[in-house]
Structure formats: C-alpha cells, structure tokens
C-alpha cells in the first residue's frame, strides 16, 4: 500500500491518528447505511417486478380492447370519446425520504363525477365504453408503478455510490493511513534511539577524558 507523503513528525502523527479514527467511524456508518438500503431494495424490487408484470398485462389488454373499439368507430368519434378524461383524477406529487434519498411519492386523488362517461352514447360503441373504463382502472396501477420504479432506480444508484465509498475507505484510505502511522511512529522511535546512543557516546567520551 502506498504511504501518504508527509513529514514524520509527532504533529503529523497526531493528525493522522485523528483522520484514521474518523475514517473508521465513517466506514462503519456508511456500511450500515448501504446494508440497510440493500435490504429495503430487495423488498422494493420484488414488489416492482410483480407490479410491472401486472401492469404490462393490463396495458396489453387495454390496447387490444382499444384497437377493437377503434376499428368499429370513425376516427373523429374515437378522438372524441377518448379526448376527455373518464376518471377525473388529480395527481398529487410529493417527496419521501428513504435513507436520505429523496424519492417521489405520488398519490392519485379521485374526484367523483356524476356521469361515468364524459360523452354522449349515440356515436360511441360499447367496446369504446369498456376500454375507457379500463383506462381508469389501469391508471392507478400505472402511477403506482411509476413511483416504485423510480424509487428502485434511485436506490440502485445510491447503493452503487455507497458501495464504492465503502470500498474506497476500506481498501484504500484506511490501509494508507495505518501504513503511514506505522511509518511515522517507527521513524520517531528510530530518531529517539539514535539520539540516545549519541548521548551515551558523548557521555562515555567525556568520562574517558576526565
């Protein structure tokens, strides 16, 4: 491991010891944090997969229903039937906090309207009615999926970053500091010994003279 390039003095030694303490503490905290994030991630991604399967099936179903409806009506009638929202919903966007990752939190608020379908029944076929109704149902799941998939993506990103930091601390920063501390303390001891032998030598020389 590479040694940090510093002067081998007592002051540097103290500074480095402080840094090592912080690094060890930070490493432990970060490791705990990523571990917890991974645990949550595994829960969320299972949920995400199940929801995704469901939504993909629903959307495929909806689209096939829609193409039937479209084939039975004129183009302008289709545009008319589908242009107005059948479920009057309000999307509420907020932010939640998962392990200090700011994730979106969505809520669909439904406003009940008197009529189920926002158009006259004369020119619209029942197939269209059915697919309009389906859209309303799928919508809630779609919004839920949007939320959960974003959370998954953001958590994955954050976990990767956290892991990289933990590894950098564990395999680079901490060993480097330890090695440098060892080097400085050995150097200091060496200096100590050499000055002691010098003193002893001087003393014996003086004794010989007398």
């Amino acid at each position, binding site marked *: 491991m590479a040694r940090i390039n510093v002067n081998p003095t007592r002051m540097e030694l103290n500074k480095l010891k402080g840094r090592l303490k912080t690094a060890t503490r930070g490493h432990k905290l970060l490791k705990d944090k990523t571990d917890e994030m991974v645990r949550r991630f595994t829960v969320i991604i299972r949920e995400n997969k199940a929801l995704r399967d469901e939504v993909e099936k629903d959307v495929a179903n909806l*689209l096939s229903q829609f193409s039937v409806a479209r084939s039975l009506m004129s183009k302008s009638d289709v545009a008319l039937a589908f242009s107005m929202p059948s479920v009057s919903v309000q999307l509420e966007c907020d932010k939640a906090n998962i392990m200090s990752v700011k994730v979106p939190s969505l809520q669909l608020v439904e406003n009940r309207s008197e009529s189920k379908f926002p158009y006259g029944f004369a020119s619209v076929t029942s197939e269209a009615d059915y697919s309009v109704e389906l859209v309303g149902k799928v919508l809630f799941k779609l919004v839920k999926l949007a939320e959960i998939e974003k959370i998954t993506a953001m958590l994955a990103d954050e976990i990767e970053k956290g892991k990289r930091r933990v590894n950098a601390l564990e395999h680079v920063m901490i060993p480097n500091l330890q090695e440098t501390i060892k080097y400085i303390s050995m150097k200091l001891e060496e200096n100590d010994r050499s000055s002691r032998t010098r003193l002893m030598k001087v003393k014996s020389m003086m004794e010989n003279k007398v």
Partner: protein
Amino acid sequence: MKGKMAIVGNGDSIVAFSAGGIVPYSVENAVEAEEVISKLAKDYQIIFVTENLAVQIEETIKKYLSSAYPIILSVPSGDGNNGYGMKSLKKAMEKALGVDILFNENND
C-alpha cells in the same frame, strides 16, 4: 404539489391513455421523442414512453434518473411488449446487488 401526466409514443394507440387524463404526444422517431421529452420535462411529473421508443432513447432517460421528478416510465406499446421494462429492472438490480434475485428461477 399538483402533477401532470403525459405520454410520448408513436402510432395511434397512445390516444387511449388520454381517457385517463394523460396528455398524448405523438412522435415519429427517436430524435423527435428526445426533443419532446426535454420540453415536457419541466412541466410534467410523469412522462410515459412507449417501449419501442424507450429502447432507442435510453441515454436521454438516464439523464432524468438523478432527480425525483420527472419520472419517465416505459409502457408497452400497441405492437406488443419487447421486455424493455423488465430489462431495465434487471439492470437496476444488478447494479445494486450484483446478483440476480428475481429472474434466475426463469433461467434454469
């Protein structure tokens, strides 16, 4: 905060979503889709993109990953499901965990 939803896709099938209050934006190709999305990103909180387009504009979608909004979500398009959504899910999992905990049972 009140949010708005939009869908970007090719073909007529996206019109179906407007019955749910999602504003449809029809585009012809990937370049156009990128332009539309960058315009929509400021005003809309959820942007749905059909899968066949999402595959082509992966880089653009990644740009919006770091912030909570807008959310860009791929949905199956009229011509079927090409598995892009599952693939991106798998990618996220591999990035975070390094192992496959969901899909391995399908492979063996």
